[in-house]
């Protein structure tokens, strides 16, 4: 039985009837033609499908669309404004933070969400003292916080500096 939901995707409102089995990833790609979230593992292990869901980075492959009626979604396509690349996208280009590019939209969205988490003061597994007020976004912190995004080409050595540059530009480092 189909269920009707509404979603705002990259600034555009949609009302759409879906099978309850539909994940946000399949809805975005198969129904709305939003192809930047990629289907890698489809099991929440690779991060290629990462989107911002109501402001937070999540794996869209594990989110049932029916459970997110009324949600606001931002994909890599929706990060840019007025034809200008988002600073994170620009930084990935400048640092050659990819090879085949399949994981890149998920990496970029995840990095944007990750920097918001840092700004909110969230600690990570490698934060020396979780109770500390202050933290610094070291390369070790970037690697740990981005561990949910796999890159099978192994572009990590360029992804980390790209994220560091975007963080510096936004004053978050």
């Amino acid at each position, binding site marked *: 039985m189909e269920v009707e939901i509404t979603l705002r995707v990259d600034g555009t409102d949609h009302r759409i009837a879906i*099978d309850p089995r539909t994940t946000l990833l399949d809805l975005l790609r198969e129904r709305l033609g939003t192809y930047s979230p990629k289907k890698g593992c489809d099991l929440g292990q690779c*991060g290629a499908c990462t989107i911002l869901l109501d402001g937070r*980075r999540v794996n869209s492959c594990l989110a*049932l669309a029916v459970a997110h009626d009324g949600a606001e979604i931002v994909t890599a396509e929706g990060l840019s404004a007025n034809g200008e690349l988002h600073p994170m996208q620009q930084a990935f280009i400048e640092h050659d933070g990819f090879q085949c590019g399949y994981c890149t939209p998920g990496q970029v969205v995840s990095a944007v969400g990750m920097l918001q988490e840092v700004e909110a003061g969230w600690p990570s597994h490698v934060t020396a003292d979780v109770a500390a007020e202050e933290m610094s976004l070291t390369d070790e912190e970037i690697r740990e916080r981005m*561990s*949910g995004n796999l890159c099978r080409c192994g572009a990590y050595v360029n992804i980390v500096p790209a994220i560091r540059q975007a963080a510096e530009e936004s004053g978050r480092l």
Partner: protein
Amino acid sequence: MKPFRYARAEDEAAAVATLSGEPHGAFLAGGTNLVDLMKLGVVEPDVLVDVRRLTSETIEEMPDGGLRIGAAVTNSDLAADRRVRSRYPVLAEALLSGASGQLRNVATVGGNLLQRTRCVYFYDTTTPCNKRQPGSGCSAIGGYTRYHAILGASEACIATHPSDMAVALAALDATVVVLGPDGERSIPLVDFHRLPGDEPERDTVLSHGDLITAVDVPPLPFAERSRYYKVRDRASYAFALVSVAAALDIADGIVRDARIAFGGVAHKPWRATRAEASLRDAPAAEDAFLRAADEELAGAQPLPGNRFKVPLLRNTLTLVLRELAQGDTR
């Protein structure tokens, strides 16, 4: 994925009533484990009752100085909470050592407790598994056992519970608040998960229709110096081979009290009561730590593929206790 109906309810009680009338239904919260299992055909509910927006998303101060954590609080929000980070660092560290940033943003406290084992045979529907299909046999025994139990296992099942959070909560004497068809009750976290015995299909003591509404963490002043140490096959985003949650209360070089729990080694978070008893009133020193580890691990029954876990856990526990005793919580 097998078709299912999607249902919402007015409130928690209505959700319990709805699921109680659906013998093959399941509650849906964050869905990070359930949707995964449904895609692979490991579980096939015919109705999902969505409780994510029904149960509490707040962390409340309790009159006794503890915290009540709503079942829908995400792993991210719980780990970021200032009170948790300062009073119960072991809990924040456990949460932050689990899953990925994306998953922690969705996974809830209630769902974390109810996640299923990551035993590869449980996930592989082409192999026998007593947990997935009672009576079909255990493929892990005699198979790949690197991630399997060394404590409390049975001939029916050697799976481990995958949660990091629950290990910290076991050490902290947390209780699980459950709403069932007959009303509300509290279950100590150490009694919430089961050992497999001859019913490995039952992970917990819950009955069908029971809904976790909150987790209570009592005050424990010495937990301000506590920690969670996880050993795994890669630096991040992997399940534990072994893990230790511990807090020590030391005065004048003597251990006054201890809280210790293990992860990755049993069908449930393993509260190390023998090690705790061994440490009480003992000097906070290396030989006492080793003795405590040995007393707890005397009952270990490792398999050919996971014998390494016994010395690994012994060393990990000793390391954590040494660090806590030295006041070096990192």
